[in-house]
């Protein structure tokens, strides 16, 4: 009863009407999050995979089955693809009860087995006793579970989730997310999760695929993406701030990164630059270390910089800081725990000392100058 299948491979391209340039895969049992802002083509991609929209060119395959291949003139209809799709607003059939909504997707079974199987799916989704209710008589969370039960009842080869948690309240969302995480351990099919919520993607997905304008920009686990974004655009889409312009300098055979009038040690990446070459660099939050004031007289520290707090916003357990770095006049942004901020006596206008860890500094690959300027602005 629990579906299994193979790897889902997607490579689709078209110039218009909705531009697409996506290339990614998702293993059976893996959860891949497609992240990107509104209008980045996430939902369009799901529709293309489900067969609801035909791309100009490309190939979509799942396990042994080819679903779409323009060179072979091959395009399976949605009915033949066996995808489980959970729509953003769930798209439950309003005139059918929860049980009948699930039954609709059981066309592959003998008619006599459908009722019992539908009940089992409802049970599995913690909807015992709600089979006779109409969608309008269910809560948002219950509707989402009926939609998920319907999608899985088909014994799909791949599960596609389009912003499945956006229509419910925070508490329900957390509970449904936990349920999805548990469900994942039981089904061995590729799962694609479309979301614009980065925290959700990081919490649930094995890997993330960053999308913009229908193009897949970078794919990897959350740590790789956050520490080594492939471009300034990816960093911006992932809500990373600390992107700066620098220059490689070499003195006495030692290569360092010049940032304004400061020079910084960098663990890797400088070897591929020529002396004097400009480079965009990035440092993740996790590699900005805030030094405690009373210990500021300690010996030399890694890439020590100082600056003045220009902005300090307390948001529950974390405090967002913006520090204008001395001698550079650039703003570094990072979060500290509110507890640490209180203990360190941080306040707006105060002076702090920081270290930018050499191993964390990431030099971005070269892009066209105009694109970089666009993102640095």
């Amino acid at each position, binding site marked *: 009863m629990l579906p299994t299948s193979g790897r889902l491979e997607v490579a689709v391209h078209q110039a218009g009407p909705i531009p697409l340039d996506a290339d990614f895969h998702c293993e059976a049992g893996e959860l891949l999050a497609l992240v990107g802002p509104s209008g980045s083509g996430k939902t369009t991609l799901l*529709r293309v995979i*489900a*067969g*609801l929209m035909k791309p100009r060119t490309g190939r979509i395959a799942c396990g042994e089955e080819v679903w779409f291949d323009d060179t072979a003139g091959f395009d399976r*209809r*949605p*009915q033949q693809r*066996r*995808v*489980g*799709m959970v*729509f953003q*607003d*769930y*798209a*439950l*059939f*309003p*005139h*059918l009860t929860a049980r009948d909504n699930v039954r*609709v*997707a059981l*066309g*592959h079974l003998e008619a006599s087995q459908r009722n019992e199987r539908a009940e089992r799916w409802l049970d599995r989704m913690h909807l015992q006793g709600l089979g006779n209710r*109409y*969608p*309008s008589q269910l809560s948002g969370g219950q*509707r989402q579970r009926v939609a998920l039960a*319907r*999608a899985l009842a*088909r014994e799909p080869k791949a599960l596609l989730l389009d912003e499945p948690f956006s229509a419910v309240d925070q508490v329900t969302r957390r509970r449904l997310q936990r349920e999805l995480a548990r469900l994942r351990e039981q089904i061995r099919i590729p799962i694609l999760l479309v979301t614009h919520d980065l925290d959700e993607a990081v919490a649930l997905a094995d890997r993330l695929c960053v999308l913009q304008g229908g193009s897949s920009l970078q794919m990897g686990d959350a740590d790789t993406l956050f520490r080594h974004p492939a471009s300034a655009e990816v960093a911006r889409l992932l809500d990373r701030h600390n992107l700066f312009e620098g220059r490689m300098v070499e003195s006495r055979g030692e290569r360092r990164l010049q940032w304004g009038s400061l020079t910084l040690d960098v663990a890797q990446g400088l070897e591929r630059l020529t002396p004097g070459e400009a480079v965009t660099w990035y440092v993740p939050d996790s590699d900005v270390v805030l030094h405690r004031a009373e210990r500021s007289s300690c010996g030399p520290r890694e890439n020590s910089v100082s600056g003045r707090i220009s902005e300090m916003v307390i948001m529950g357990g974390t405090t967002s800081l913006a520090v204008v770095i001395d001698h550079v006049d650039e703003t570094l942004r990072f979060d500290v725990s509110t507890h640490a901020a209180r203990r360190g006596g941080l306040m707006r206008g105060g002076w702090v000392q920081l270290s930018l860890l050499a191993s964390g500094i990431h030099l971005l690959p070269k892009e066209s100058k105009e694109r970089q300027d666009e993102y640095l602005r």
Partner: protein
Amino acid sequence: MDWTALSVSLQLAVLTCLFLLPVGLWVGRTLAHTHFRGKPLCEALIALPLVMPPTVLGFYLMISFGRDAPFGAFWHRLTGEGLNFTFTGILLASLVANLPFAVQPIQRAFEGIPANLREAAWCSGLSPWQTFLRIELPLVWPGVISALALTFAHTLGEFGVILMVGGAIDGETRTLAIAIYDRVQAFDERGAGIMSAMLLLVSFLTIGVVYGLAGRRRWRRV
């Protein structure tokens, strides 16, 4: 009481509904789901009988049913019969006159179905036909009931078009509405009164039954 006229009226109304139901479903669904260049023109043509005076519509139909006109000649070659002053003639005229009443409510109902319900049905494995029968048709059902009720009631009351095309041949084209007019012309107010009351009762019962059926559903839109 002219029972023959009542029988002609009811036959005409029932047959008009039966013929226009599939037409309304097909045209309404097509207009709701597709976008093409001439769509506003199509919609205007279908709505035309709503705004045209019935006598004008009846006049044009009478002309085109004549054996000199292309349609009338075609019909004569096909069946060997004419259309003016026959039951078939008033049925055809009634189909044209009621087209907007059948199409518009059904089209609105199809437009009200969210597009992703059809897609969800396809993803659940339903063929386009199964999707139509199990998902779309139940959802547009109130629109279909409205269309049938409007068509039925409007056909019972139709006067101008029927008179122009059919005249008032007893047992063939004299509907109850025309019989009432004849009674009044003959100063038989009592007869006209009885028949009017009968038409009122039949219309009210039909609409009541139909709306009662349409209102009996347990679900509502999410």
